[in-house]
């Protein structure tokens, strides 16, 4: 067993997946910058650290840190599934109870069910994936039956609280034909925290079903946040994702969407505004394998201080995926000296009757717009703030619930001192 994993203990559920993954951890290489997928994001410091998985059980409200609200979006009337250091907090959670909805912590599902749902193969190809598959702790299990629409959003709140902790959340969502759900995954961390949060989110969306996913990272402390989301879309299904990085010392969000039926629609947008020495990496893959699919992607980022931003957007159009319409846009602003962005929008197209385009820009604030606002009496700071708000607004405005987008905006404005 490697030094890195010596203090990790795995819960007793999901044995089959764990044993397979455990054998792979040592054989899969720790990613380095030499590997194309990790060219701009180094995990060597993480791999050389000594972390431990959390040992204790649930702490309830008494053990919960005061500065963090267990309900991260107080204005939003939503269900809640709360985890602290990977451990389910039943007293802080509020699960939906309704016909056609099964919602529970992943640790409670039967081994038989586990066998049928854990078919993601990420652990076979990546060290990071093998770690999650071997040590995953708990997470959301959501099953929405045919034609059932979940009446409120489900907020999955994960808190990292402690030094040198390793967290491995794992979530699974299945929406049956015609069903609908909205899931918010919110990652938090206390100021003194350090370590890693290595999470995996799997969802499969049946024909004509719809899934909305909002991912928010707002982690104080010094956390390596590695999130992998795998979405499988069946015919005529709809998926809409939003990824916001508000705060996080080292964040990597990976979103992979694959269409396995005709006429799927995928929308995925994101925003990032790292400050200081923060590192934010957004990797997205859209794999069109069936005809008549559409996808639209918009990621916007502003790099402040000495931060680094990474954007990698892959769009595949497989040979049979005729009449695909794929659009991707990535817009960046490098705001300060010392900040940098590495962008790599990619298109791989193997079908001919397609419309695919991507655009990628790196620039600064529009000087003319700044001047215009100043000529109307705004000082430079206020003018700049207004432009930032407008820049991010295109991403924020497509968030399905207003309460959530307001909360994200509030946090951004608090952090970036918007008026």
């Amino acid at each position, binding site marked *: 067993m490697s030094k890195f994993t010596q203090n990790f203990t795995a819960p007793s559920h999901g044995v089959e997946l764990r044993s397979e993954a455990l054998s792979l951890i040592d054989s899969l290489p720790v990613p380095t910058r030499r590997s194309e997928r990790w060219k701009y994001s180094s995990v060597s410091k993480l791999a050389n650290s000594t972390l431990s998985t959390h040992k204790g059980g649930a702490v309830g409200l008494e053990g919960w840190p005061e500065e963090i609200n267990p309900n991260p979006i107080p204005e939003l009337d939503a269900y809640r599934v709360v985890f602290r250091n990977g451990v389910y907090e039943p007293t802080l959670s509020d699960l939906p109870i309704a016909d056609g909805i099964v919602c529970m912590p992943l640790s409670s599902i039967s081994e038989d069910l586990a066998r049928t749902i854990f078919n993601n193969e990420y652990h076979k190809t990546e060290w990071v994936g093998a770690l999650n598959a071997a040590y995953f702790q708990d997470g959301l299990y959501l099953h929405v039956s045919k034609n059932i629409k979940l009446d409120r959003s489900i907020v999955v709140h994960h808190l990292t609280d402690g030094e040198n902790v390793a967290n491995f959340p794992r979530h699974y969502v299945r929406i049956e034909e015609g069903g609908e759900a909205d899931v918010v995954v919110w990652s938090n961390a206390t100021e003194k925290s350090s370590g890693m949060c290595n999470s995996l989110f799997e969802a499969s969306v049946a024909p004509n079903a719809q899934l909305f996913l909002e991912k928010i990272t707002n982690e104080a402390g010094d956390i390596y946040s590695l999130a992998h989301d795998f979405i499988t879309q069946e015919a005529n299904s709809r998926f809409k994702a939003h990824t916001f990085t508000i705060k996080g010392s080292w964040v990597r969000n990976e979103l992979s969407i694959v269409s396995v039926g005709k006429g799927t629609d995928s929308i995925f947008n994101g925003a990032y505004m790292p400050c200081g020495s923060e590192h934010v990496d957004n990797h997205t893959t859209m794999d069109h394998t069936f005809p008549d699919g559409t996808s639209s992607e918009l990621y916007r980022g502003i790099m402040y201080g000495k931060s680094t931003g990474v954007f990698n957007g892959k769009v595949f159009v497989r040979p049979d995926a005729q009449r695909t319409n794929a659009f991707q846009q990535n817009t960046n602003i*490098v705001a300060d000296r010392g900040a*940098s962005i590495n962008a790599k929008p990619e298109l791989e197209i193997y079908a001919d009757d397609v419309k695919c*385009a991507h655009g990628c820009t790196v620039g600064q604030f529009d000087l003319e717009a700044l001047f215009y606002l100043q000529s109307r009496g705004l000082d430079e700071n206020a003018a700049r703030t207004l432009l930032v708000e407008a820049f991010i607004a295109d991403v924020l405005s497509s968030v399905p619930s207003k309460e959530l987008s307001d909360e994200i905006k509030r946090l951004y404005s608090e952090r970036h001192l918007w008026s």
Partner: protein
Amino acid sequence: MMGQTEEEKLIDEVTAKSYEFGFTTDIDSDTIPPGLNEDVIRTISAKKDEPQWLLDWRLEAFRIWSEMEEPDWAHVNYPKLDLQAISYYSAPKKKVELGSLDEVDPELLKTMEKLGISIEEQKRLSGVAVDFVMDSVSVATSFKEKLGELGVIFCSLGEAIQEHPDLVRKYLGTVVPQRDNYYAALNSAVFTDGSFCYIPKGVRCPMELSTYFRINQAGTGQFERTLVIADEGSYVSYLEGCTAPQRDENQLHAAVVEIISMDEAEVKYSTVQNWYPGDAKGVGGVFNFVTKRGICHRAAKISWTQVETGSAVTWKYPSCILKGDDSIGEFFSVAVTNNMQQADTGTKMIHLGKRTRSTIISKGISSGYSQNSYRGLVQIHPGAENARNFSVCDSLLMTDTCGAHTFPYIEVKNPTAQVEHEATTSKIGEDQIFYCQQRGIEEEEAIGLIVKGYAKEVLNKLPMEFAVEAQKLLTISLEGSVG
């Protein structure tokens, strides 16, 4: 009969003998046995009567190369080459001269006719003996005189090593060092010849320098090395390649091109590449693994224009290092792939100086079962204040079995930079073809028309001599690819 056997015996003896002594002493033979080791490099160097420093430089390159691995990151698939099976030196052999054009492959002639190449030129290109009254010879002589008057040096690299060793020594390997990449290292170790061009300060070269009208007609070989030096305030337009189909037995071409554009100098480098792409099933064809790079000093400019239609596998990224303030890099490319061809091509723009600007226009056209990728890097370093880049990569798909890919890398480390990249991929417009057909234009001709219009932005950048032929070449390359 008896005599012949005697002769055969003798030949056997002689050949056996030469092996006894190993090939290092075998100065007189034209071709050295296949394989690559230090002795082979010593032999090449000795045959070319090179100075010691160049031999040392080659040997160092070989040592570096031996420790390198063949890159596999490009979006191409081909059987790995056995580099030990190649002979690394063969002196230009006299080609068998044909009596008349009637003996030339009619297929080849048909293509040349379509390209509009004159009968005399056709004869020259297909190796038919030509009259010595032929124009190009006198043209070449007058060219040489005129260039000499201006102090322009334009000769083979081998000649330059003998005649201008200081210039070669000063600049060789400064833009593409030996350890740059696997094929550049190989080239550095074994390059046989190439072109050398030096434009003195303030001179505007009055004519397009080209390998087409090359004064020195020595075969360029498969490991060609070109060195272009434009001194302060000078200008040169350099043309490489030829629109005529090139039947070449060499499978691997690993060339290196280095350009040095000094303060306020401008170099325009145009390439038309039409090596043998293999047959429709993908058998045969040339592997074109080329390293081309230029460095721009203050207010200098390098402009790369390429029309790539040939080769089975192309792996080529003409790049600009924009080192000096206010320097400019440009890249205009049309890459056509048909049948089983694979192309992974693009550019690198490295912005180091202040107010450096670069433009990238890349047009890919894929047809048949081919794979066509654009791979580009735009890098803005921290000191590159107010750098600008604008990139457009368009791909046109002609069939549902081919692929078009875009892999741009954008790395920005300066807050004043402005970088724009856009790419589109789409099918050739059926409505456009229909419109043309409705007006009485045949389908194939219509496709040619649309493609020419699509690639016009790049074709316009080519020197006149090339532009017309290149347009025809595009049409020919896409023959039989009605989608």
